[in-house]
């Protein structure tokens, strides 16, 4: 990206959700947009929502503020995207589920279980030479757990990618949502989803 903002802002992770139409190729459409514009997705999770025909994607994009805003504006243009939520501007809860298979020996077994307990990690599989844990939590907790386990020998991990929801407790706080003027009048409304008031950042109060 040649966005001039890149000198001003550090690279960091941004947590963004998109409500998208649940139609063939939507996932490809979105990931291909990321790919061809050169935005790196660190994690991506997709699932259905309470609305039939609407899926929710949560992704973590790495970059400076300018890169992320550009990515969101490009996403917003896609016909399949109903709305985009930048969680960094809201209070939100986020979770990630990770399966971690840790090597154990008769000597380490107890210690590994003890640490897992401290992290509220559940044992989901017990083998003679390995224990598999399920951990959910925010990214910090999961990273800390994996760090703790590293010395025992991590055999395999699988992370779902982060998911996030705006906190219900800040319903009165205006949501920062990208939603183009064009699309609002164009797209048939999805029942139950009200496009929220558009507000753009970086160039505040001018759109």
């Amino acid at each position: 990206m040649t966005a001039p903002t890149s000198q001003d802002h550090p690279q960091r992770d941004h947590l963004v959700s998109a409500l998208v139409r649940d139609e063939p190729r939507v996932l490809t459409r979105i990931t291909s947009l990321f790919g061809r514009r050169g935005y790196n997705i660190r994690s991506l999770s997709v699932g259905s929502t309470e609305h039939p025909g609407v899926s929710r994607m949560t992704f973590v994009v790495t970059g400076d503020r300018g890169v992320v805003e550009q990515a969101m504006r490009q996403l917003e243009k896609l016909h399949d995207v109903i709305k985009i939520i930048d969680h960094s501007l809201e209070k939100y809860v986020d979770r990630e589920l990770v399966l971690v298979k840790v090597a154990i020996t008769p000597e380490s077994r107890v210690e590994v279980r003890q640490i897992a307990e401290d992290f509220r990690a559940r044992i989901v599989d017990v083998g003679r030479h390995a224990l598999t844990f399920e951990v959910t939590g925010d990214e910090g907790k999961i990273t800390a757990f994996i760090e703790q386990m590293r010395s025992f020998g991590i055999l395999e991990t699988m992370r779902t990618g982060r998911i996030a929801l705006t906190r219900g407790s800040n319903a009165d706080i205006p949501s920062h949502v990208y939603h183009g003027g064009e699309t609002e009048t164009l797209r048939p409304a999805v029942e139950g989803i009200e496009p929220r008031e558009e507000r753009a950042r970086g160039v505040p109060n001018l759109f």
Partner: protein
Amino acid sequence: MTQQDMTGAKALWATLVRHGISTVFGYPGGAIMPVYDALTFYPEVRHVLARHEQGAIHAAEGWAKATGEIGVCLATSGPGATNLVTGLADAMMDSVPLLAITGNVARHLMGTDAFQEADITGITLPITKHNYVVRDVEELPQVIAEAIRIARSGRPGPVLVDIPKDIQLAPYHGEITAPHARPEAPAPAPEATERARELLRGAKKPVILVGGGSLDAAAEITALARAWDIPVITTLMGLGAFPASDPLWLGMPGMHGSVAANRAISEADVLLGIGLRFDDRVTGRVSGFAPNAAIIHVELDAAEIGKIVRTHVPVRGDARVAARLLTEGAQKLDLPEWKAQIGEWKSRTRQPDHWGAAHAVQAVVGRLGPDDILSSDVGQHQMLAAQLARFERPRRWINSGGLGTMGFGFPAAIGAGMAEPGVRSVVIAGDGGFQMTAQELATLKMYDIRNVKICIINNSYLGMVRQWQEMFHERRYSEVWLGDSNPDFLKLADAYDVPGYRASSAEELPAAIDAWLADPRSSLLEVVVPHEHAVFPMVPAGAALNEMIEAEPPRAPRKEAKDA
């Protein structure tokens, strides 16, 4: 037609007719035959049979660029569909409203690598504004209506609808979807226009930079510029959005822009950009672009604001509305020094003095009237035409800007000529690009199109590539010589029953142009020019606009390739 007779294919045509589509450009094939069969029931639609799907889609683009209305093209599955790819990418880059309809194999064959099957929606995902596979015949008219709406609304672009053959044949029982109302373009925020006005009021060296998104706001932009008395620069895509005869016009910016345009941008303290995306051919090195200017960017597409250049005042909205708002409360700026400086830069414009491509292009474009449509292919002749032609109104200049598609010009001129049969549709092409779609001479003949005037500037080279090899590759001319293998263009035209004329010198040229233009039929003029002329001014790739090379430097002796 009774309800029982209605099929998906007929529903498609009925929907297109309902949307006012009068002409489609296309080429039949196995997987779209039901659509072609149904066409025989809709005599109100004119189908133009191109000789290659690329010709069909560029013609549809030419139609759209000349009229501002949607262009429609049709192709079969597989190779027919993939032949549309270049045109779709071209339309995407230049924001051309376009509907491409492709046939596909029957649904039960999709995904089996069936004969002439291609995943065209997958292939065209990144180069369409949106695309569809119709999987239920009852949805077909709605999909077409929605596709047209998406192609035309906001920043326009191409939409592809892929229709499996069994859907084309399936009985259809529903209604024919009426056109969607064109959505109201969003009006810019009052705070934004107020801040923009403030900047303009305090400007000492202002310029207005107008792009292809401004073509339908030409009247408003002209009023704006005159009200404030601010000089105007039009990009390659924006030529015609401001009258060239107005003393405020400075020409085109960028790689082959005018001295005045590039110097003015480099010196400006306030730059008002309207309907443009700051393409790298416009900006040169971004860090050196308008380094002293506060930039106001009027743009409908939010994703373009701040994408390339730092924007101080973003004005999101319709160019027409924004220009009107910015004209309100305008006061003529009294900036004699700025005007004098600009006058000095403008005086550096040199008319081509020696025989060559520039001279030839000047002679041709000098003969155009304000209503004539000028198309160009891609290359040196394109840049020369953009530099030398004087457009008084928008949608008279048709070329491939963003994608730089060789082969675009001639079929686009056919499309534009068919859209406006009463208007002369002139195309300037090079000997290289013309041969990429030369088969469309047959289309001229088949429909007896009489207003297309083809001018081939023949320097026997891929001239622009040669120019780069000359400047940046020590004159190692690698694979750019066409001279030994070019056809006799007049014989080629004659083979298609198109009359041809030729000029090889400055002396022969005026009479040849006269005869070429006076011919009541579409005709071809070949102008044979010296091999090695380059286009100047030029900003080398990666350089800033103020590092422009104004005139051709003395030629260094040719260095032989090391392995020679």
